C-alpha cells in the first residue's frame, strides 16, 4: 500500500504544481533557516576530545589576589603562571601532562626564494602530541630533554609542510624562525579540531598552529606569549627572568589521569602545592583548584553562547510558522480532493486508509522540502562564511549527520502539518460528495 500511496501522492503533487511548490517552499524555507542555525550550534558544540573525555583535564589554580576573584571559569584564572606550570611539570603522577602557549614568528625556508611569512606557533612540552592524540605523518616529537633545555627543533603541520616542502618528507630539513635555524623533526597529519578545545582562550574557532616548538626554549629565545595573559596586580617585569617569575598567567595546562586513583593522587599533589605556596606568602585566596574534562571545559568557556542557543530556538519557532502555513495549504489541497475520497470510501477505503494516504502525501512534500532546505542551508552557511571571513570556515558546513537531521526535521514538520488536514478529510462525510454530481 505504501508504494501505491506514494504514487498517488506524486500524481496529486503534479496535478496542482503551484500549490505543491508553495508547500514545498514553506517547508524548505523553515527547514533551511532551522538547519543553518542548528548546524552552527551543532558544530560549535562538538568535542574533538570526546574519546578521551574521561581522562583529560584542564588545570586551573586560584593564584589570584586577595581582593577579588578572577574572571575565568569558576572564578579562577583560566591559565597558569609560567612559574606554576614549571612546578607542576615536576610531578610524576599524571600519565601525561602538557604546558603550552601560543606564539608566533617570522618563518623563512633556508636557501629559498620564498618570501618570509608570519607563522602561528605553539610552544609546548612534548606530551602535547600523545595527550591530544595527534597523529604524525613523518618523524617524531622531541626528546624529554628539550622540554628543559633548548633544542632548536620544530614539528610542522601537514599544511605547512606542503607549503614549504611540497608535502615531501622534510625531517632533517632546516627552517628559519626569527632568524634562528631550526631542524624539522616531525610532520603532523592533518589535525584541526573545531572548536579548538585545547586552547579556547585565544579564539575557539581558530585553526590549529602551523609549527610546534619545545618548551625548553624560553630562556634562550626570550619567548613572550602571543596569547591572552592576565595578572591580579599591575606588575611590570624588569627583565625576561622577571617576566617568567611573575604572577602573570599565560600558560595553559592539561593533564591525562588514567583513573580515579590517579586523579585523587593528583588532587593531593595540587593541594600540597598550593599549601606550600601559601606558606611562602603567595596564593592569598582560599585554597581552590579545578580539573575540568574537555566537555566541561567547552561548556564553562561558553563556546556555544546563550545567544547562539536562543537563535536556535528562534529558528525552530520560525519553522513552526512555516509548518502552520503548510497546514493551511494542505487543508486547501486535501479538501479539494474530498469528492475523490468519497469515491474511495465507497469502494472500500477505511478512514485509516484515507488518513494514511494523505499523511504520506504530506511526507512526500516534506521530503522534497527537506532537500530544498538542505540546499538553502548550504547557501545560508556559505553566506555566513563570507561574512565572518575565516573563523567560521570549519563550523559553517554541513556533515551527513546534519543532512539526515534536515530530512528528519522536514519529515516531522510535514507530517505535523499534514495531521489535521488528513484527519479532516478522512472524517468528512463521504456520502455528501457522492450526491448526484
Amino acid at each position, binding site marked *: 500500500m505504501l508504494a501505491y500511496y506514494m504514487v498517488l501522492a506524486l500524481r496529486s503533487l503534479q496535478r496542482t504544481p503551484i500549490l505543491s511548490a508553495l508547500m514545498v517552499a514553506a517547508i524548505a524555507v523553515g527547514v533551511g533557516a532551522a538547519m543553518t542555525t542548528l548546524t552552527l550550534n551543532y558544530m560549535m558544540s562538538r568535542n574533538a576530545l570526546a574519546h578521551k573525555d574521561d581522562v583529560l583535564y584542564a588545570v586551573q589554580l586560584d593564584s589570584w589576589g586577595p581582593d577579588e576573584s578572577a574572571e575565568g571559569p569558576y572564578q579562577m584564572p583560566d591559565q597558569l603562571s609560567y612559574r606554576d606550570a614549571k612546578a607542576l611539570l615536576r610531578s610524576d603522577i599524571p600519565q601525561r601532562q602538557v604546558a603550552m602557549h601560543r606564539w608566533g614568528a617570522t618563518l623563512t625556508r633556508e636557501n629559498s626564494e620564498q618570501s618570509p611569512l608570519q607563522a602561528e606557533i605553539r610552544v609546548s612540552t612534548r606530551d602535547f602530541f600523545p595527550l591530544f592524540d595527534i597523529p604524525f605523518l613523518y618523524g617524531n616529537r622531541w626528546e624529554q630533554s628539550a622540554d628543559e633545555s633548548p633544542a632548536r627543533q620544530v614539528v610542522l603541520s601537514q599544511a605547512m609542510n606542503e607549503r614549504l616542502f611540497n608535502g615531501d618528507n622534510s625531517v632533517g630539513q632546516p627552517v628559519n624562525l626569527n632568524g634562528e635555524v631550526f631542524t624539522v623533526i616531525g610532520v603532523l597529519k592533518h589535525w584541526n579540531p573545531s572548536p579548538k578545545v585545547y586552547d579556547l582562550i585565544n579564539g575557539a574557532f581558530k585553526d590549529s598552529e602551523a609549527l610546534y616548538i619545545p618548551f625548553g626554549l624560553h630562556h634562550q629565545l626570550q619567548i613572550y606569549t602571543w596569547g591572552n595573559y592576565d595578572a591580579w596586580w599591575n606588575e611590570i617585569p624588569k627583565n625576561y627572568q622577571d617576566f617568567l617569575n611573575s604572577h602573570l598567567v599565560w600558560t595553559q595546562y592539561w593533564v591525562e589521569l588514567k583513573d580515579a586513583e590517579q586523579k585523587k593522587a593528583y588532587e593531593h599533589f595540587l593541594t600540597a602545592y598550593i599549601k606550600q605556596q601559601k606558606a611562602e606568602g603567595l596564593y592569598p585566596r582560599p585554597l581552590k583548584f579545578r580539573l575540568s574534562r574537555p566537555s566541561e571545559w567547552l561548556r564553562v568557556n561558553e563556546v556555544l553562547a546563550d545567544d547562539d542557543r536562543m537563535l536556535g530556538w528562534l529558528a525552530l519557532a520560525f519553522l513552526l510558522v512555516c509548518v502552520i502555513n503548510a497546514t493551511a495549504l494542505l487543508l486547501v489541497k486535501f479538501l479539494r480532493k474530498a469528492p475523490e475520497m468519497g469515491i474511495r470510501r465507497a469502494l472500500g477505503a477505511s*478512514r485509516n486508509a484515507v488518513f494514511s494516504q494523505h499523511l504520506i502525501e504530506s511526507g512526500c512534500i516534506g521530503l522534497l522540502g527537506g532537500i530544498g532546505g538542505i540546499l538553502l542551508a548550504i547557501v545560508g552557511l556559505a553566506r555566513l562564511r563570507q561574512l565572518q571571513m575565516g573563523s567560521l570556515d570549519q563550523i559553517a558546513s554541513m556533515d551527513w549527520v546534519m543532512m539526515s537531521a534536515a530530512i528528519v526535521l522536514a519529515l516531522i514538520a510535514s507530517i505535523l502539518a499534514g495531521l489535521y488536514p488528513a484527519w479532516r478529510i478522512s472524517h468528512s462525510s463521504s*456520502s455528501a460528495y*457522492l450526491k448526484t454530481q
Partner: protein
Amino acid sequence: MLKMHKVRKSFRTDTIETHALRDFNLEVKEGEFIAVTGPSGSGKTTFLNIAGLLEAHSGGQYLLDGDDVSGLNDRQRSRLRNEKIGFIFQGFNLIPDLNLFDNIDVPLRYRGFKASERRRRIDKVLQQVGLAARAKYLPSQLSGGQQQRIAIARALAGEPRFLLADEPTGNLDSLMARQVMELLELVNDWGTTIVMVTHDPDLARRAERNIQIVDGQVADLEYHANPAALSA
C-alpha cells in the same frame, strides 16, 4: 441477503433535524433485482448509503447476510463494503486523473490483491463491459454511457454479491440507458443481487420487484396506484 427492520436515519444540522428514514422495513433476497422509485428527497439515496455501509443508521436493525452491522467499526464496515458491495452512481464518479485501468484498480488495491490478480480481474471486467481497448484512456475521453459502463466494471471487479445503483441511467439518453440496463440485467443473471434507484418507470418495470419510498418509508404498492395519496 439484506434485512432492515424499523431502521431510522436522521440528519441534524444547526437548526433542523431531518428524518430521512423512519421505521424503514425491507427484505432483499439473494439474486433479486429490485427497482426503487419515489419522489425526490424521500430517502432513496439515504437507504442505499446505509445498505452499502457508507453511513450508519441511527436506530433499528440492519442485518447483512444475517449479521447485525450496527456494532461494526469503520475498518470492518469498509472491509465488508469492499468485499460484498458494489456502488454505481448517477454521476458515474470516476476519478478524473486516473485512467480506466487505474480506476477499476482502486477497490482491488484496498482488497489487497497481488498485481497479477488485479490485472486479471481488470482485464476481465473491461472485456465484460466491452471497453478493453480503452484501458489507458482517461474518463473525460469517454461518452457518458461508456463512463457508466466503466463505473459498473469497477463495481464488478471485486465480484461483489450486492450491487447498489443510484439512478445509474439518470444522466444518459435513452439508448445508452437501455445499454446500461441490459448490462445490469446480465450481471443479475450471473447471480448478483441488485438494488437500483430509478426515476424511469420503463426501466423500473423491467426489474423483478418494485418498491416505492415515500417520506422515508417503504410505501404499500396499493398506495402507489393512488397518486392522490402520494402528495398527501
